[in-house]
């Protein structure tokens, strides 16, 4: 792996069912993730995907593309646009720098044909590398 390498695009959709499961699993019962009328009354287009679900899905696709046992050390994101269930989504990553022990990547999730909705940076440590 070297600087400039790209991972993805990984394409998927988030369903309403996933939002309900994630709300339960993360104990996040903010109604903007399950109540359309309430979400609209607060100025949103309808229910939106949890930022943390988007963050977790980016990590899922990127980490699955790296060697087994790779550890996530640091990961930060900015939530730029709302993501709604049923939209066509795309995760991509680009290696900023890498050596045998670790790599830093720029990652993002975008609605197909749209602007990036979540942008972030990750630092990963490869298996067998000493901390």
């Amino acid at each position: 792996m070297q600087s400039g390498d790209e991972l993805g695009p990984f394409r998927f959709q988030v369903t309403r069912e996933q939002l309900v499961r994630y709300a339960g699993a993360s104990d996040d019962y903010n109604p903007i993730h399950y109540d359309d009328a309430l979400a609209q009354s607060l100025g949103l287009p309808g229910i939106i995907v949890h930022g943390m679900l988007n963050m977790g899905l980016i990590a899922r696709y990127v980490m699955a593309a790296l060697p087994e046992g790779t550890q996530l050390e640091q990961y930060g994101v900015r939530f730029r646009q709302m993501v709604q269930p049923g939209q066509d989504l795309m995760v991509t990553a680009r290696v900023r720098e890498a050596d045998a022990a670790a790599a830093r990547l720029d990652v993002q999730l975008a609605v197909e044909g749209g602007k990036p909705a979540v942008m972030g940076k990750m630092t990963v440590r490869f298996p067998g590398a000493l901390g």
Partner: protein
Amino acid sequence: MLKLDESLLGQRSEPVVREVERGAIRKFAAALGLDDPIHTAVEAARARGYRDLVAPPTFAVTLLPFEAPGLRLPKAGVLHGEQEFEWGAAICAGDRLTVTGWVEDVKTRSGAGGKMHIISVASEAVNQDGERVFRAKAVLIVTEEVEHAVGR
């Protein structure tokens, strides 16, 4: 509505002890569609050198105190602007984590959509052996509409 006491900025919350349960890890891994068995099968986790099921990295969010001294957030409509984690020792089922949180910063901005409060909440968790398992920072956004929504 948003209640904020600026004199309490930076003050750490009382530590909260959170127990990490196998079922919670399995449910979280399933919600994200993670298929690595270290999150679901104890033997697989042990074979990879862990003491028990391993929490997925962003499981840390389930342990965060979004409330911190001086801050009371509205129940509905709080938006998440940014999130950062730095992980240390692995979080495994059976761990007892001591979590503290504090408000790092609060700004109020006026934009096209009206006024909004931008709140940075930091937190840290240490395991039963005194090892740090994560540090986190969340940037939360409370818009005027949300702040003034009644009865929520």
